[in-house]
């Protein structure tokens, strides 16, 4: 009994003792932990003191006379520059290695660059407040005319100001051999981009100053675009089309590279390669032609030309930017001027068309922005161009080095590369425009004034395909392979759907607009194929389509300016009234339907060549589209220009000043069309200059994006086993 009564008590007592014990241990443990913490902090403080007192120095790199980068200057037959490694700490600094940020299988620098410490040492110890010089030398032996890179200095101290600890310090190096033209040559891309912006500022100042002679602004704009065209010709002339990644600078030429926003790691980074050079040239050409075509605008000229020049700045910017943030800024900068240009100076339904264009493009580009941020946040550590160690970057060549697919990241629980690819692609596809995102295009084209239609079709649509090549394909090749089939299918839908829609149009401008949808389908099919011919075909088609639609829209503008209608069925027999105009329309239509001997042929033919090995059925389907294309062009030609002239036109009020006759195409209009027509004809017979220009760029994209097929791998294996004596059966490039 007593035992029974006792036992709970004893249990209780035990429990209480235990709990006391436990709490005591706990408090003891806490005390111990506190002690440890204090000791630890003391210890770290000691260690910190120690770091300052004994073990470590603090490394600081600076170029002579400035912080960074190191400018190499001509010394004899080579270029050289020095920088200083300074120990700003209290202890000695051990420099273990000074090396270029470069490697044989991942070339960043052109050949012939060396770096060495003062006195030819490989390692050195620098006492506190002492410094050591290092020399960078460049024996320019390759094709590169300039040099952008970093020198890495490994030491027992970490770089100051780096995002994360443990990164060796680095400093940027830069050299210019010059392309000629001095300052202009060195900064050609910036000048091309921002010269039109200067025009905007000039117009703004003219407005503030109360300048009223608005007609002069036309001349100003033509002059600005003319200068740009000349500069672009020079750029074309100086561009080394055989320049590849192996020649350094990541395969880019005419580079401009600096830090823009340091805390966000945004760089001011421009450059051209085989992918963008043709587009830069096209932009120069089309914006010049557009400036000439703008002479038919008579209202609010200050606003018009300010917006026009701003738009041109945006276009150049997109094609030369190599930093995603910059790319995005230029991409969006184009939207507002386009909105106003369509909305203020457009046709009757301009307001609707303008906002539709704006909303569609913005809807695509915000997702693009999300994808860009994703790239930015998940990339590998790298260095800014002046040598600051960073964990994040927007730089396209750096992002190309990241193996995105093998990171295994997810967005919304889906494979991140696929989601990012789709987001980017939708943003670009809206611009192309790809079915089913194309509905803004006919509206925008029909309502826009002639010059703006020319720009829109000539350059803006190409930004979509350019973006796919520059960003989707090069940054996310695995996802591109995953989606290539879909791209090709949408391309074929575009070709056929656009062609059939064009056939149904009564409005000549709408017909041309839908023909654009159809023709841009070829670029998608070609990209989907990913073969070297396919990617070349895409670029060729982009360039030629720019020339041809530029011509077509100008020609539509000619007839619209005369009688303020574009209804195909209202015309007839115009060939007798305007023979020269008819000839040009015939020429442009033939080019557009892909007549051999004119440039339009090459894009289509090469697309079929490139796509056939991959997508036989689709290519055959696409080829039937060519028949439809021929049909609507010829039919429109017949309805407008052949047959009997309608006599009721004689009483048309718009023709009264001309005595009831259609005035023939005038000199300014001819001047607008002529450069395009000449190029169409020349490239039709001799496409070599264009092909040579884009060749290396296309090969590079193909190399990145097109994984070797099963057959090729088998062939390589066979070659290794010695079954095939000539081991390069699989050689692709």
């Amino acid at each position: 009994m007593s035992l029974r009564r006792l036992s709970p008590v004893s249990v209780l007592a035990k429990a209480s003792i235990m709990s006391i014990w436990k709490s005591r241990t706990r408090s003891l443990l806490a005390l111990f932990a506190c002690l440890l913490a204090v000791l630890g902090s003391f210890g770290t403080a000691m260690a910190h003191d120690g770091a300052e007192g004994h073990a470590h120095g603090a490394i600081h790199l600076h170029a002579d006379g400035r912080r960074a980068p190191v400018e190499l200057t001509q010394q004899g037959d080579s270029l050289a520059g020095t920088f200083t490694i300074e120990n700003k700490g209290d202890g000695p600094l051990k420099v273990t290695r000074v090396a270029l940020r470069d490697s044989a299988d991942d070339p960043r620098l052109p050949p012939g660059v060396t770096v060495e410490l003062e006195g030819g040492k490989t390692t050195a110890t620098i006492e506190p407040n002492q410094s050591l010089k290092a020399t960078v030398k460049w024996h320019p032996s390759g094709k590169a005319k300039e040099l952008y890179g970093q020198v890495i200095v490994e030491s027992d101290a970490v770089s100051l100001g780096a995002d994360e600890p443990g990164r060796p310090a680095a400093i940027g190096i830069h050299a210019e051999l010059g392309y000629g033209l001095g300052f202009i040559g060195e900064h050609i891309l910036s000048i091309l981009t921002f010269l039109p912006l200067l025009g905007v500022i000039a117009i703004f100042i003219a407005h503030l100053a109360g300048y009223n002679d608005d007609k002069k602004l036309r001349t100003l704009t033509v002059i600005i675009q003319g200068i740009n065209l000349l500069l672009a010709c020079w750029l074309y002339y100086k561009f080394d089309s055989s320049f590849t990644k192996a020649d350094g600078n990541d395969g880019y030429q005419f580079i401009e590279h600096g830090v823009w926003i340091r805390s966000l790691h945004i760089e001011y980074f421009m450059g051209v390669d085989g992918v963008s050079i043709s587009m830069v040239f096209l932009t120069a050409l089309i914006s010049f032609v557009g400036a000439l075509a703008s002479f038919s605008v008579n209202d609010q000229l200050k606003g018009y030309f300010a917006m026009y020049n701003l738009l041109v700045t945006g276009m150049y910017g997109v094609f030369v930017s190599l930093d995603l943030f910059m790319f995005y800024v230029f991409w969006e900068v184009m939207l507002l001027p386009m909105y106003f240009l369509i909305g203020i100076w457009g046709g009757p339904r301009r307001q609707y068309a303008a906002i539709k264009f704006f909303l569609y493009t913005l809807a695509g580009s915000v997702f693009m922005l999300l994808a860009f941020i994703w790239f930015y946040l998940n990339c590998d550590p790298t260095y800014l161009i002046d040598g600051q160690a960073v964990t994040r970057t927007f730089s396209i060549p750096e992002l190309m080095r990241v193996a995105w697919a093998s990171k295994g990241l997810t967005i919304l629980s889906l494979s991140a590369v696929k989601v990012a690819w789709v987001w980017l692609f939708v943003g670009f596809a809206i611009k192309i425009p790809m079915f089913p995102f194309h509905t803004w295009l006919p509206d925008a084209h029909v309502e826009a004034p002639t010059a703006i239609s020319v720009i829109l079709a000539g350059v803006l649509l190409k930004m979509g395909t350019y973006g796919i090549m520059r960003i989707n394909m090069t940054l996310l090749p695995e996802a591109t392979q995953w989606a290539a089939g879909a791209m090709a299918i949408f391309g074929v839908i575009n070709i056929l759907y656009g062609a059939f829609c064009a056939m149904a149009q009564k409005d000549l401008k709408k017909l041309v607009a839908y023909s654009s949808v159809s023709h841009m389908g070829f670029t998608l099919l070609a990209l989907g194929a990913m073969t070297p011919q396919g990617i070349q075909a895409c670029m060729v088609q982009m360039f030629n389509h720019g020339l041809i639609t530029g011509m077509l829209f100008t020609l539509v503008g000619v007839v619209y300016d005369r009688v303020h209608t574009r209804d195909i069925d209202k015309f007839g027999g115009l060939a007798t009234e305007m023979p020269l105009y008819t000839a040009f329309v015939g020429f442009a239509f033939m080019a557009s339907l892909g007549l051999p001997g004119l440039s339009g042929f090459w894009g289509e033919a090469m697309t079929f060549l490139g796509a056939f090995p991959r997508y036989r059925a689709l290519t055959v389907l696409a080829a039937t589209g060519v028949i439809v294309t021929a049909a609507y062009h010829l039919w429109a030609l017949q309805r407008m220009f052949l047959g009997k002239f309608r006599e009721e036109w004689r009483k048309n009020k718009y023709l009264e000043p001309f005595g009831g006759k259609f005035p023939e195409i005038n000199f300014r209009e001819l001047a607008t069309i002529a450069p395009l027509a000449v190029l169409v004809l020349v490239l039709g017979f001799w496409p070599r200059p264009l092909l040579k220009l884009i060749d290396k760029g296309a090969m590079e994209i193909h190399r990145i994006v097109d994984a070797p097929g099963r057959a090729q791998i088998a062939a390589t294996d066979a070659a290794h086993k010695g079954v095939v004596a000539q081991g390069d059966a699989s050689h692709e490039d």
Partner: protein
Amino acid sequence: MDNVQSLKYLAPELALIAAILAIIAWDLIAKGKAKITGIVGLAGAALVFSGGYGLNALLSKAEPLTLFYGLLAADRFSNLFRVVFAFVTAVVLVFSIPSDETPKESAELDAEDAPKDTALTKVRRDPGEFFALLLVLTLGMNLMASSRNLLMIYLSLEIVSVISFVMAGLKFQDKKSSEAALKYVVYGGVASGIMLYGMSWIFGLTQSLYLGECAQRIAQLTTEQGKVPAVVFVGTVCMLAGFGYKISAAPFHMWTPDVYEGAPTPVTAFLSVGPKAAGFAVLVRFFWDALGAAEMPIVKGVPVDTPWPVIAGCLAMATMTVGNLSALGQENVKRMLAYSSIAHAGYMLLGFSVFSEQGVASMVFYVVTYCFMNLGAFLVVAAVAEQNGGDETLGAFKGLGRRAPLVAAVMTVFLISLTGLPPMAGFVGKFYLFSALISKGGTWNWAVAVVGVLNSVISLFYYARVMRSMYLEKSESTSPTQVRRLFGAASIALAVPTLVLGIYWGPLYDFVLGSLSMVR
């Protein structure tokens, strides 16, 4: 720190109080033109002192302190907001300076039909009271940003609320203005009642009004229960009603459009920026300081999910979407901007919902950029309405591109920035918000980010409507519109930073990022 010592660190607020009293006195003494000059001078001096004090404290890296035995914090966070509030109030001060002479036409108009009047001439009988009240509001906001005590939070919030009610009703003969004030009072009363109720839950649980002590107790309970205690959850949600009302987050936003439309435009501009920023400041401090929301509580070595990110994310998504969708159909530009300000509160909540330092930095940076663009947009509305007999509808903006090209261009800059397109400050702000969300990652944050960017697209539509009115539509009159020189200059002064910060914002962001530390 004890009360007497603390006074030294309260100098900006004391200066404001002194200025308020001086303005009231000057208002009684002075006559004629000197009156308004003196008042504006006094108010301006107090604001410059307040902002300058804050800036100086930030630049000199002053030690963070708690004042009045822990009632208030004097840290970088509160000093940053002191600067912001001083700036906002100063801009509104410029806004509110009445025109020297009433335009002739409108004077004649006055004689014919009295009720039709411009916003500013009818606002008040005496300018003194307006400026005094404005400074009281600033005082309240300063206190809001530095409160570290539940009661102090409540009191400072009420100072701001009550004065806001009065200011909303300043157009004393205007029915809309009176309606606005009344609505504001009713909503405000309900919201603060709920908030007070929530505070009582928190107090009941933690037995303390001091945020720091609340935090310790809540952390302890969280560890013991393995999750955030239900009481804390209920209390916080109730308190969110009060905070949400201040920042006009859905579903506590109902008062916003009516008040913004009815109140005099300078007041609207002020309400849309100042108290909203203060609301965010107190919201952040409460969640960081009292709930420790920035770190996940760790129970037995495993981090436990808190409900806060999801609540804040839902709040953000609802606020953005409601604001943007409601703004689509508005004809009155002021009312449209009211809804847009709700949407912007939603964007800012995006940064808040991440509960990371980067998130708060992006939020505060957005607040700063938002100050420029939103104040600027309201300023243009005020300027245009003044020239159109108080007409604030889209009709008043018709053909402005021809009639007043510079004002229209400046307005376009603000609208583009509000939409979030580069190269404007608003884009940079949004960029930081979205990158804060994405860097936190996870399906939830990605979903919120997607909703956020879609909202950006929606917002384009209604901002573009104003641009359409200005540029794409023609007005009946083609005579040039002359806005007051002061307004023109002020709007350009706001447009320049909106543009410049879109191109080069590095130093400002670094400054904001370095000014977020709070007393814990």
